[in-house]
């Protein structure tokens, strides 16, 4: 079982490095013949790399998607905001207890539209990760989100959320300050909105911590993102008393984007650039941005009451069960 996305990406990273070096030589080469020859070698390497990526990424298993979703090179919420928004003012206060850096948010101008953006934020290096608490928000993070949702409602701004968290913070402090209430209240707050809402799972959609800010009219997942009721390691620990069987649990949980689409739990799976969002963050962002704007355009045609009703109905129909007296008898016989 792979432990990191780098396990299979290593040959690619090595090829990338070789290509980079070779290209530098090409650039300096003055002899036209030699230049052409080297150029062809660069092209060849690139073809081989891309062929590898194409095969590899077209048959990624659930566990590999978990690892990619967790990759530290994967674009994070602020990367999408920076790529997609002309103006963004981060507002930090929850007006209750603390500034939580695992959820960021504020008003922004996206494609010329005023929107309220809220998303989980992870960190890339050790300091950042600690500052962002590994993207695990505390109650104050969700309460800040609620404040921003209410502000969006007041000023008639669509709400755009980016979901990317392993889970809500499970510590003693979070319990003391009501992490459960905060998550539930955040969902409730989203159900109360009469403005358009779009959520995108851009990495890890980790259980309650994810759904807390993912109650939208339109929910999307990036191709390699995952969305799960429980972290696969936690599931394996409970079921088989073996957290290391995460890959097995990932498969059982069907936490990939195609499964979520199949069960009708997301509206749209957004294709990622060749080799994953991390290979071309800008292209990934543009795909996400276009999808957000398309959904807003559709939602603009609905009244506030219709938006609210559509959102409730969206979640209302979720569930897999049978209901009929006949089914009941059959099930029990």
């Amino acid at each position, binding site marked *: 079982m792979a432990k990191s996305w780098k396990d299979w990406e290593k040959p690619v990273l090595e090829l990338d490095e070789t290509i980079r070096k070779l290209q530098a030589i090409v650039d300096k080469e003055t002899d036209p013949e030699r230049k052409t020859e080297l150029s062809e070698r660069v092209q060849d390497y690139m073809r081989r790399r891309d062929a590898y990526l194409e095969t590899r990424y077209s048959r990624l298993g659930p566990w590999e998607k978990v690892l990619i979703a967790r990759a530290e090179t994967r674009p994070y919420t602020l990367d999408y905001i920076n790529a997609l928004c002309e103006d963004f003012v981060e507002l930090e206060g929850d007006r209750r207890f603390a500034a939580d850096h695992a959820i960021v948010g504020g008003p922004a101008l996206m494609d010329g539209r005023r929107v309220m953006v809220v998303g989980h934020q992870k960190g890339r290096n050790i300091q950042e990760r600690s500052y962002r608490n590994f993207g695990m928000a505390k109650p104050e993070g969700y309460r800040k989100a609620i404040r921003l949702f209410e502000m969006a409602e007041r000023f008639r701004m669509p709400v755009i959320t980016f979901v990317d968290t392993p889970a809500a913070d499970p510590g003693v402090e979070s319990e003391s300050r009501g992490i459960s209430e905060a998550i539930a209240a955040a969902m409730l707050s989203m159900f109360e909105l009469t403005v358009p809402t779009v959520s995108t799972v851009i990495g890890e959609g980790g259980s309650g911590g994810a759904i807390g800010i*993912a109650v939208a009219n339109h929910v999307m997942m990036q191709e390699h993102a995952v969305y799960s009721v429980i972290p696969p390691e936690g599931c394996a620990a409970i079921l088989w008393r073996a957290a290391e069987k995460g890959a097995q649990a990932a498969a059982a949980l069907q936490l990939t984007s195609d499964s979520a689409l199949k069960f009708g739990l997301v509206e749209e799976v957004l294709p990622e650039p060749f080799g994953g969002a991390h290979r071309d963050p800008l292209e990934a962002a543009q795909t996400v941005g276009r999808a957000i704007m398309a959904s807003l355009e559709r939602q603009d045609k609905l009244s506030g009451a219709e938006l609210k009703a559509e959102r409730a109905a969206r979640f209302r129909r979720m569930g897999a069960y049978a209901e009929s007296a006949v089914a009941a008898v059959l099930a029990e016989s």
Partner: protein
Amino acid sequence: MPFGKASSGVAPGAFLPCSNCRKTIFAAEFEANLRVCPYCGHHHRLTWQQRVDVVFDEGSFVELDTDLRSGDPLHFPDYAEKHAQAMQRTKMRDSVVSGRATLMGMPVSTAISDFHFMGGSMGSVAGEKITRAIERGAHEGIPAIVFCASGGARMQEGLLSLMQMAKTTAAVEACRSAGVPYIAVFTDPTMAGVLASYASIADVIVSEPRALIGFAGARVSKQAQVSKVPDDFQTAEFLLSHGMLDKIIERKNLRTNLASLCRLLGGHLAAVEATRG
């Protein structure tokens, strides 16, 4: 077999040790005391039927949504077998029973989780029943009262179970918009996905004493924590002192206290207005 470990099959003349304090007590006395240990006051878990008996007017409970049957959408390893065994053992069809009842004369809508069925976990059927019970309150203008006893979302139904958190929350929103009282009663245990959705956003939240209540398994919370864990961590008493509960109510007072709350919040009026509207 100590009390609180099973719900039936004990002869009334038998006497057995309390699973909490280990003191021995007659089965008949235990039942008469609503399954609260007379020595240590431990509130042992109830089945949904016992909960109905403790709280609602005698014979007033009518079960609804009885035709709902669980699927196995993910073909999750061993789920079908576990579910079938739980059905057989508990004579329930899933972890939640929903219906109508009267509480000291007042009509109410209710959903009751039973921990004995797969740890009271919330999958599609449980989520649907809870949703309908709360919606029924909203639509008919009668208070909705949910009794929680759950380890959380049912992982065997994957993301579908996570979505039940949002679905039940939507029902609470409907109840709020309708101005109908919605009350949650936490019993041992009330955890994770259930606590982090419909349970925590009730108008009023009460709990039985010493119930285990928390977001993460205590193991996870403590792992995640460098600082000291309080002795009463994740108990009803801990939650009360941290502002998450409104009141801890002993089982014997639950019926009258819930009736008071329904009356004070206008539960008896909402029904009248719903008929008018």
